[in-house]
């Protein structure tokens, strides 16, 4: 059996006996700088824009709702089941489908609809990233299949960066099968290194920060 064969070759190669204790892996120093909320928001929005994403700072949830309504401009949309979207009143917008829990149904909708609306579990200011954890509230496909993605999140979910993410969430696998960081719209440079957006994922990304 190849399992034993490979493990045997590894142990022989390293000169190690089976089941030997190991030393602790080298410590990784995670640095979480103290950055006030306003600066985090500003950095986040600036970074998203630098990646050709659109941004909006909404003082209230009502404002966020009005912004999304205008941004949809009549396009059909599918919203995730995130409680925060419901709080913002997104599901009641005209042309927005929501409350979908069936994979096949969701997939059929996402494959044809113009916009996917999600919240985000966290955001990373340093890199302008959204952190999406798959759950009953957030499906993977809504931020992936439609050509445009709008994410709405409260300002207090913006972390400074990767170090803070792994401090807050040292074991993502314990809570979800899929954690995805989204940093800007889908892009490629595979033909003559010419930047083209929207290859397979959404070419249009809008981040709305509330608060």
């Amino acid at each position, binding site marked *: *059996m*190849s*399992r034993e*064969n*490979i493990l045997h070759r*590894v*142990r*022989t*190669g*390293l*000169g190690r006996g089976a089941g*030997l204790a*190991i*030393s602790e*892996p*080298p410590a*990784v120093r*995670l640095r979480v700088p103290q950055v006030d909320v306003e600066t985090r928001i500003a950095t986040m929005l600036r970074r998203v824009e630098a990646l050709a994403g659109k941004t909006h700072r909404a003082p209230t949830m009502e404002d966020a709702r009005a912004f999304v309504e205008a941004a949809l401009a009549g396009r059909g949309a599918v919203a995730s*089941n995130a409680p925060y979207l419901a709080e913002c009143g997104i599901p009641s917008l005209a042309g927005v489908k929501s409350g*979908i*829990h069936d994979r096949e149904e969701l*997939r059929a909708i996402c*494959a044809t609809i113009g916009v996917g609306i999600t919240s985000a579990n966290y955001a990373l200011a*340093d*890199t302008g990233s959204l952190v999406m954890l*798959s759950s*009953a509230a957030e*499906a993977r*496909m809504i931020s*992936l*299949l439609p050509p445009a993605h709008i994410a709405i999140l409260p300002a207090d979910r913006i972390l400074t960066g*990767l170090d803070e*993410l*792994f*401090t807050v969430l*040292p*074991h*993502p*696998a314990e809570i979800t*099968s*899929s*954690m*995805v*960081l*989204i*940093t800007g719209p*889908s892009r*490629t*440079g*595979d*033909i*003559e*290194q*010419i930047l*083209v957006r*929207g*290859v*397979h*994922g*959404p070419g249009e990304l809008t981040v709305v920060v509330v608060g």
Partner: protein
Amino acid sequence: MSVEFDRKIHAALNDSKLQLAVYTATARLKENRENVVAPSVLPDYQELRTQANALKKHVVENLDHYLEEFERNVQARGGKVIWAKDATEVADFVLSLARERNARLIVKSKSMTTEEVDLNERLEHHGLESVETDLGEYIVQLAGERPFHIVAPALHKDRYDVADIFQKRLGIEREVVPEKQTLIARKRLREKFLAADIGMSGANFLVADSGAIVLVENEGNARLSTTAPKVHVAIAGIEKLIPRAQDLAVFLKLLGRSCTGQELTVYTSFLSGARREGEIDGPDEFYVVLLDNGRTRLLPDRGKRQSLYCIRCSACLNTCPVYRRIGGHSYPWVYGGPIGAILTPQFLGTAHEPALPFASSLCGACAEVCPVKIDIPKVLLELRSEVRKSEARESRNRLEKLAFRAFAWVTSHPRVYEMLAPVTMALMPARLRDRFGLAEPPARTFRQLWSRR
């Protein structure tokens, strides 16, 4: 140097279009990288490299431990781990899974590991359709070629080449605008994603404490490959392990920057198992194939095993004066550039292309940009010494063989032997005779005495 290697190098050097394409593309990638690792932008860059090196060293030195820990954690979340020692075992596993699931169409996101084992060819040979979905890989697959560069596989094709390939292979009108070409690929591949039975990916990292795989990409094809089909199979070399999820804070900061000059690539997926209770979408089945394919051959040598630290960022290719002239297709195996020059001889043996470790100016640029601090020039020197030693062994062997052939010929031709034997004995200097403890030869040989009997 093999005739093949020599021919390919000259072909690349004489292709002015290719020279320009490789030079400009690598120059841009190189500059992008330099801009984001500069001390003013990333003050702890050197510290990150040191940490990454220490982590990889620790993993490789305790590889069996982390492989088992990874396997346990994948299983704990309902996934399966398959151990494959070579190309055949990977293909056999995928083929049997496809048969069981009645699968015909596989969508695949970019993976150098599967290039190593010619997986697409093997699957297609058995009637499966295996489609590359990264735009560059898609172009290269349609052209029937292998990737030119680790992260920019179609670097050698311009828009007109792509127009020709699409026209011929997809049966469409000629289209030369890259934006429109991209859209054509998006449409074609979207159909494939939605119809596929199995999604296949590589893995940039295997996270031992989580039983998770990590994929980095810009297009979204890896996300689609691992989300749309009901079955996800990830194929990864056994050296891809890192101990903990939090180590990603080190590696992710280095990988995107070293690849393309991005602080993070557009999508970073951390996937641990199939979709769970309550989750709306994602695959129902999750498999990780751990591939050896020659990797364990690198372990016994403490100096050279650092070659396994590589995270396939391609920074060494972009900075290498040799790669930038001879290009990716001149190299004898799937890995080009400085990292290819040290991996190929160790995976396949130095005899595969003895000249390869010598195809370097030893300028050290590769070691300077390597995010995990592999001392590539040092490994190259050790490989050169191995090549020379085995050549010396060869030539000693050749001389010995010649001597024995001559001896065999003489002893099987009695007349010649009868003539030469007395002469040889007479000619043998006394000093040599003493050294071997031989008696003084008699006046006549045995054969001479026998014939006069």
